[in-house]
């Protein structure tokens, strides 16, 4: 096998794994944007909060980074419910989502970033765990655990949420709420309560995605911005609110970014997501699986 084919295969495989991780950080936006029609651009800030919780749990208390975030998931869930309540009272009820609602989340994103800088500085932080280094050797190919664990975590989250959304009463109501809020009332469900639950879930998934992020790479506070474009590119490309579409988009982006980094240099990789996003919006705003 010649060197470039080898590179290609490697880029494809790690791109695939990266895609699984991207699904983990994007699935919350697929819920908030895709199902509730709330554009939470502060989503990456929540991801980073999750990363720093994993960091603190790991370095201060010596526990597994994923476990550290899992323990705090109820807190993130509540935080999400509170965030939605504020959004609902201040913007949705006043029908002012587009200008002030968006700016609200932008402000939160900025405050969270500066808050993290003030608390942790701008240094890169990382965690210790057995899967942060080393490979799973499968004979021909070697899979780094560092990518494999976030991939598996992402898969588990997507499958779990898909089951929750399709098999439970609340889950189905979450899928229905943006389609016809008034009709949902006729099903005896309170749309505001349903959205609050969904937004809480979205926050919790973001935090868990954050644990995956700090396993993949060291983090610093402004890294969240790179993820704004990624998560929205993935959700828009995947056709809003569709999990299978989101998975395809996440893997596609992971592979394209990896190929770009391999063949053009890593400094070009951040532009890929945004380029994909711009092209999707311009050419096919309903996404690849959109109807």
């Amino acid at each position, binding site marked *: 096998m010649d060197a470039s084919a080898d590179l290609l295969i490697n880029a494809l495989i790690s791109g695939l794994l990266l895609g699984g991780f991207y699904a983990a950080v994007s699935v919350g936006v697929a819920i908030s944007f895709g199902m509730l029609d709330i554009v939470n651009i502060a989503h990456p800030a929540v991801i980073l909060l999750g990363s720093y919780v994993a960091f603190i749990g790991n370095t201060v208390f010596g526990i597994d980074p994923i476990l550290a975030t899992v323990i705090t998931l109820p807190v993130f869930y509540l935080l999400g419910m509170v965030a939605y309540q504020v959004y609902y009272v*201040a913007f949705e009820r006043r029908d002012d989502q587009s200008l002030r609602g968006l*700016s609200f989340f*932008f402000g939160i994103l*900025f405050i969270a970033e500066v808050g993290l800088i003030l608390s942790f500085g701008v240094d890169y932080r990382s965690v210790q765990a057995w899967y942060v280094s080393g490979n799973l050797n499968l004979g021909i190919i070697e899979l780094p655990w560092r990518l494999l664990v976030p991939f598996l975590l992402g898969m588990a989250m997507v499958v779990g949420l898909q089951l929750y959304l399709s098999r439970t009463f609340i889950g189905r109501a979450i899928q229905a709420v943006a389609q016809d809020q008034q009709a949902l009332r006729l099903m005896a469900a309170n749309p505001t309560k349903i959205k609050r639950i969904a937004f809480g879930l979205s926050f919790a998934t973001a935090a868990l995605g954050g644990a995956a992020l700090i396993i993949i790479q060291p983090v610093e506070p402004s890294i969240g911005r790179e993820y*704004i474009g990624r998560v*929205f590119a993935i959700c828009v490309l995947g056709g809003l609110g569709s999990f299978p579409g989101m998975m395809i988009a996440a893997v596609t982006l992971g592979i394209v970014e990896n190929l770009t980094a391999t063949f053009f240099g890593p400094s070009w990789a951040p532009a890929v997501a*945004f380029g994909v996003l*711009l092209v999707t919006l311009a050419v096919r705003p309903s996404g690849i699986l959109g109807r």
Partner: protein
Amino acid sequence: MASLVAKDAEREAPRGLGHVAFILVMVAVAAVVFMITRSIGNSYAFFAAYVVVQYMVLGTAWNILGGYTGYVNFGVTAFFAIGAYSTVVLHKLTPWMPLPAMILIGGVMAALVGLGTGYLTLRLRGVFFSIATLALAVVVQTLITNWDFVGGARGAYVMRPRIAPLIGGDYIQYLFLVMLGLCVIALATARAIERSALGYGFAAIRDDEAAAEASGVPTLGLKLIATALSGGFMGMAGAPLPYYVTYLDPSSGFSLNYAVNAIAMPLIGGTSSWLGPIVGAILVGGLQEYIRVTISSAVNVLVAGVLMVAFVILAPQGIVGLFQRKKR
């Protein structure tokens, strides 16, 4: 038709000056501000005042699109940096070019990028435009980081001339004067838009775009005009930056602070009129300078974000709106 529109304008705003009178008053105010700053007699005053006036231009620029049409541009840094880096390029290629010409070119470049982005995404719902502008900021940053001619990730040094042309003294005085001039132009433009058919078209889009479209308002065209004007002024606000900082690298040129401030100031001051961004810029810009001196530079960047969130929740009409309500 034209007289009809003019009559409308009179009815809407019975008080107030004509355009020429307004510009004259603004020029007079700018001259007074410049004289006061000069009388303080140290260059720190110019450096601080420059920043506040720069934010007035940025805030006014953002408001032309955001406040008047309701489309939120998060990519302020992209337009601002396009202006700044166009000056870097011009400084290397044509160092003899006067600054106002560089500003004009920077503005045109940014306006063109605004036009392009708008053309691609303004047909969609407003949120998609907003997300696209976020994306634009990172795309432009990546391009510039990878462009060696303007210094790439290492950044570029731009030598500031020692002596200011025309007025003499330190060059920063000239930069400040130019920025004041730009501010007068931006304000006069914003105010003229508010009182013209263009402004009514923008307001129609903001209030109910579907209805505006249905009643024959050329919404896409108007949105493109707003985006180009808004982006153009942002680019112009950024064009003198290399001379101000003398060293420009992507991470400072694309600092999120610019975007947050440019959005926060109109929202805090009030988005419905040209006065809002000015009030917001004076308040927030002044407060930031004060906090930077008294507390710390880390806290000062938080101010805009916290105030913005507080205002959008508690006082959605901004400071100007609070006063208007009281007057009634």
